[in-house]
């Protein structure tokens, strides 16, 4: 038999010795466990979920992935979905499920926890936390006095090719949607064309932009605010600063993350309890202090390192009201030649 057996034997032994116990140790999400599908990565929410499990005695299983992929999964799973709660990084993915009839309306009390506009009009989802759009810059390469007062000024010649964008990223698309809503499609297109004319460096996502600004490849970039905080938490010497466009400029638009209850959940009560918990002062403090986000529940305090609510733009867009919705936005970005 020779090495035939020895190979198979070695591999099997290795598989059993290494994988076996670890594989067997994994829970399978039984009927009595609350299943959360989370578009927030575990490093940004797991401690909270563990606290909830400890306080409530409700065991939790979590599936992490990008919000859009999880929304597709829930829809594909249909009435067989194990998910009870869906936490999304953007209103787009919960909106998709809402439109597909996969979400249960939330209690009025929950909706009332957050300001008007931070929840779906049909109560399909409620906002949990927010991040604000910002201009991240490298102080070694950019002088404070050269920073613009408005995101609309970035089309000026002095910024041509110096501001990195992530045109295919959901947050950038949400921001352009706000531009369309506030200024009209014509001006939004003009801004996109103006940016494209400068042939800006483009990236896939916020992480790549922050990395490039930090190493000095690009002086500035349009991103969400918390990336610079996290990058600097790891490496305080990194030359990275956030510039918040002042006075509620559209460049400082707040984008919310959201929680929703799945219509086919077999544990609706527990699901509601979890969402309640995520809007409680304790959880809202976690968002503010640990993940550097804006807490959305009424009365929660904003992290001192961030500009106060009054300084940022809390424009809300109802995608259903806006002609063409998100699809039109992405088409406009494509047509500008940025992608």
């Amino acid at each position, binding site marked *: 038999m020779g090495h*035939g057996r020895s190979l198979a034997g070695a591999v099997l032994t290795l*598989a059993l010795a290494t994988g076996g116990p670890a594989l067997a140790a994994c*829970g399978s999400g039984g009927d009595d466990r609350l299943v959360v599908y989370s578009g927030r990565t575990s490093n940004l929410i797991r401690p909270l979920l563990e606290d909830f499990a400890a306080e409530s005695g409700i065991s939790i299983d979590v599936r992490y992935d990008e919000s859009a*992929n999880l929304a597709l999964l829930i829809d594909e*799973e249909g009435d067989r979905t194990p998910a009870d709660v869906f936490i999304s990084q953007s209103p787009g993915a919960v909106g998709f499920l809402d439109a597909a009839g996969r979400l249960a309306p939330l209690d009025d009390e929950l909706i009332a926890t957050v300001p008007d506009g931070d929840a779906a009009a049909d109560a399909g989802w409620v906002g949990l936390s927010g991040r604000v759009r910002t201009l991240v810059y490298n102080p070694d390469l950019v002088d404070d006095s050269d920073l613009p007062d408005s995101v609309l000024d970035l089309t000026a010649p002095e910024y041509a090719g110096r501001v990195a964008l992530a045109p295919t990223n959901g947050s950038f698309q949400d921001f352009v949607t706000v531009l369309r809503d506030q200024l009209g499609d014509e001006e939004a297109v003009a801004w996109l064309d103006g940016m494209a004319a400068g042939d800006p460096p483009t990236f896939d996502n916020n992480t*790549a932009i922050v*990395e490039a600004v930090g190493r*000095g490849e690009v002086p500035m970039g349009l991103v969400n605010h918390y990336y610079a905080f996290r990058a600097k*938490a790891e490496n305080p010497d990194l030359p990275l600063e956030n510039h918040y466009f002042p006075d509620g400029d559209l460049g400082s638009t707040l984008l919310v993350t959201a929680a929703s209850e799945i219509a086919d959940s077999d544990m609706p009560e527990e699901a509601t309890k979890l969402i309640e918990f995520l809007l409680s002062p304790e959880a809202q403090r976690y968002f503010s202090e640990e993940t550097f986000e804006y807490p959305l529940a009424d009365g929660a305090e904003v992290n001192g390192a961030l500009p106060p609510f009054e300084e940022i733009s809390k424009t809300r867009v109802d995608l259903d009201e806006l002609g063409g919705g998100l699809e039109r936005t*992405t088409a406009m970005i494509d047509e500008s030649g940025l992608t």
Partner: protein
Amino acid sequence: MASPSGTDAAVALTDEYPKLAGSTSRDGRPFTGTAPRWLVAVCAVVGLLFAAPLLYLIWRNITGDEDLVDLYTSRATLIPLRNTLELAVATALSTAVVGTGLAWLTTRTDLPLRGLWAALAPLPLVFPSFVGGLALMAAVAPGGLLDAPLGWVGVEATRPEGFWGAWLVLTLFTTPYVLLPVAARLVALPPSLEESARLLGRRPSTVFRTVVLPQISGAIGAGALLVFLYTVSDFGVVVLLRYDTLTRAIYTNRLLDRDQSAALSLLLAVVALTVVAGERTLARRRHRGPLEAVRAARPLRVPLGRWRGPALAAVIVWVGLALGGPLASLGLWAWRGFSGETSSLASGDRGLSDLVEPALNTAGISIVTALVAIAVLLPLAYLSARHRARAADVANGFVATGFGLPALVVALSVVFWSRQLPEAWGLYQSFTMLVFAYVVHLGAQSLRAAEVAVGSVPSRLDESARMLGAGRLRRFRTIELPLMLPGLAAGGGLVLLSTMKELPITLLTAPLGFETLATRIWEDAEAVFLAEAGLASLVLVALSGILTWLLVVRRTERLA
């Protein structure tokens, strides 16, 4: 390693095997008969299972309301389609050249530190493209780690971008798809022909072209096909480097316009099927009857002479770029985390001990997946390599589409089909389902190598054993399996490495709470916890290195 008497006999027999002269005589090929019914039945089931993604897409397109003709003829589709094809063809060609060169240098020459390069060269395959691309960018982009060293040699640092950027990064990361099968084939080739040709005064390059190349062209073609399929299905690299391909359109539309996304995925499946059909036709025309595998009494070492230095330099540059570049960035990120004061690594909140469970999970599930892939696809390899049955080509096409489609589509198709099964079976989000999804997506990688391996078993041997009264099972165990091992191990090795880094399928279909190194790297990179992502990536590379060496390289070497 204990050699059973049967294999010793095999060596003795094949050393005098007349076909070594490379004659086109077809004698001694009794295998090309009608396939046994049970084999056809098994292969039909395997083929059907692999058709899961394709059938799902067909169903989606029937129930959707996208006008396929309109869509497929629109500029918005044709441009990304052209981009996809150009990138895939270019990458397949470059990896064929580089992979063959590396395989030859590390198996057949007196290249210094051969064993080390043989162990390191397959590893770039294990970088998940999202973090590998990011790390490579951080190394070679302006202001990056290699900015200064590049400047010393007069090269200006540029961020890889667009076609050339995607081509370069994909070539660096996918060359192992060619390298591993070709190296396995070279190791199994009898050295006698090459030696005779050299004794007759042929130049080494002539020997390579006229003697070696015809014998490894099947393996090169198989590897290049894998690169092609990987490239058309890859999303991470093209998106990071901003090159507009079909996968990008599929992903950006996945929520906004699902029907269009499904229609474009179907187009990608058609591309995969077409290319496989083309490759099959070529393979049929190709000079039949490759030289059979033998276990050479002593390894052949072509002296490189004055080319030894340049060859070593080339290998160092290659391994440095493909492996060293990303590793340097990842190492720097991890080091920053440990040396900084505020990161979770420095404070001890997170560290290597957190990675033990994901590492064990990764190793366990990848080994199981590789074994299952080899086992499931071996019958199909027999059917196509031995019996050259048309049915095998059809099944082959299904296996290839599983690899040519984005992992997200494969994952959703498995979810869709498992929903049609009774809930009571408890298959949904079980390990069985996870391994099934992995094998459907990645199995093509072991199929090609398995076919080459089956094809290399000398028919004369089997015949002799049969005459000596050995049963089918015994012949398989004692003669065929040992001879096929290098090829099977190479194919299994590819599946192993790609399962270790697999992300979309793991995230969507793994049992709840099942974490792998790839899922850890992803979530840390998503949140810009680069230090933690760097550390986990280093562990992933180290683990892959150990497993590749233990299960693939060392075994291939021993056989040489």
